[in-house]
């Protein structure tokens, strides 16, 4: 790469208010003509100080704030937080509570992947798949709204289980949704997967090989697209993932097209998991015990715990240091998008400006997770 003289470089910032930065990320991109020389991501525009807020709130007061860490997958964050506290107080949730948690988490994974699908294709210019993805997503959100009471900030999990039981008609709506969902997925594949324009935009662009993936501790679908078969639900199964059969899709041609295909496959896997949870839950409607009877207000846990969960964007860890008082001493959130943001610089070097959109879109980065 020959040295480019300074006056031929144009620095533009794809700034905080920009249609395609998935929130408020600012990228100072230095261009020579249209090829990208250097990207300097500047984050911090959505920093709400969630870790400092944990230090002066009791465990119950911090619970609603936990949904806002990654507002597209609220269930995963609240599960990571509560799983940590349950480990400290060694409470084990009942079998039914585990199933309800799994079914709601998998539905949340589908909504988060659908939103990513819509925004990714809108970045590349196709406007109609955005609406198809949101029509499907709206169906799930209606079900979750009737179950938990709100569309995104669920606050539905509590110590040892869930706050409210699932009744018959919500289960039937879930069943009817997952039957119809296969045709919707088929439609996305028809519309996009073979399309030569889409292939030329995403085929072998933004390659993450195995070393950089490990070096930058990338997790989730971006990692599985580079050939490393690593999914928390299989390696250390939590909840009920050990007695559910689903396979983890792995591709190894490392480009943003395989990241697209992997996420479509993951949605299919989540549909299978939902169906199996539905079959178990249908004939366990009657048993009542869905949460522990310990009063959440007066718990005083003690010790250190790392609780992990496989969120739609990767490995989400909530590390709690509790010192026996009512308030947690220190909570650290290890969020997956924080590490995929670092990757953009050496991923999108000397590609063209429009390719930056397809690389950054395929990484599925969400800014509340990065800034916390």
């Amino acid at each position: 790469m020959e040295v480019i003289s300074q006056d031929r470089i144009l620095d533009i910032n794809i700034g905080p208010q920009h249609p395609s930065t998935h929130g408020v990320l600012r990228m100072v991109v230095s261009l020579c003509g249209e090829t990208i020389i250097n990207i300097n991501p500047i984050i911090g525009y959505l920093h709400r100080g969630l870790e400092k807020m944990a230090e002066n709130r009791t465990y119950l007061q911090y619970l609603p704030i936990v949904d806002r860490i990654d507002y597209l997958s609220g269930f995963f964050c609240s599960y990571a937080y509560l799983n940590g506290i349950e480990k400290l107080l060694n409470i084990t949730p009942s079998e039914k509570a585990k199933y309800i948690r799994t079914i709601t988490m998998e539905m949340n994974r589908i909504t988060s992947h659908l939103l990513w699908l819509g925004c990714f294709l809108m970045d590349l210019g196709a406007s109609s798949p955005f609406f198809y993805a949101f029509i499907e997503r709206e169906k799930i959100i209606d079900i979750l709204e009737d179950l938990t009471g709100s569309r995104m900030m669920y606050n539905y999990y509590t110590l040892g289980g869930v706050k409210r039981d699932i009744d018959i008609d919500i289960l039937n709506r879930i069943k009817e949704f997952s039957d119809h969902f296969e045709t919707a997925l088929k439609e996305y594949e028809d519309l996009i997967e073979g399309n030569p324009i889409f292939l030329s935009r995403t085929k072998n662009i933004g390659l993450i090989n195995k070393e950089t993936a490990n070096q930058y501790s990338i997790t989730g679908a971006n990692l599985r697209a580079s050939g490393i078969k690593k999914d928390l639900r299989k390696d250390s199964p939590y909840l009920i993932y050990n007695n559910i059969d689903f396979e983890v899709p792995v591709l190894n041609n490392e480009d943003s097209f395989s990241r697209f295909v992997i996420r479509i496959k993951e949605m299919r896997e989540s549909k299978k998991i939902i169906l199996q949870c539905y079959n178990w839950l249908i004939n366990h409607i009657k048993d009542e015990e869905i949460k522990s009877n310990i009063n959440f207000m007066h718990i005083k846990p003690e010790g250190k715990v790392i609780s992990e969960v496989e969120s739609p964007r990767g490995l989400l860890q909530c590390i709690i240091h509790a010192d026996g008082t009512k308030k947690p001493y220190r909570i650290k959130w290890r969020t997956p998008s924080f590490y995929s943001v670092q990757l953009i610089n050496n991923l999108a070097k000397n590609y063209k400006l429009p390719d930056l959109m397809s690389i950054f879109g395929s990484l599925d980065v969400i800014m509340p997770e990065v800034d916390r």
Partner: protein
Amino acid sequence: MIKSFILPIKELIKGLYTVFKNGFKKRVTLEYPEKKKLLNNNFRGKINYIKENCIKCGICQNVCPLISCIKIDTDFSIDLSQCIFCGNCVENCPKNALYFTKEYELAVNNKEKLILKEDN
């Protein structure tokens, strides 16, 4: 060579066809002011307060994640402009003095109206 030329054309036509197929499906727009979405009673809308049940125990104030959203000292007041409708206070109130309504249109022209006093 022909294969690599005909296949993209077929895929492009398939893309057009799926968009065309979608044209004849049911519309999904919901004209908001005229037709409203029906909500079930789990919905977390505006919080109402029953004066008789309340024993002024202060649990709702301790449970609320916000700083000055619920005040309980002499008379009871909720600042709806701050409230995030998380439902902590409604669940942990021992005497069920607070309950959720299905009202979510809370646009007012001055903020004082959003502070729910005891009377209303």
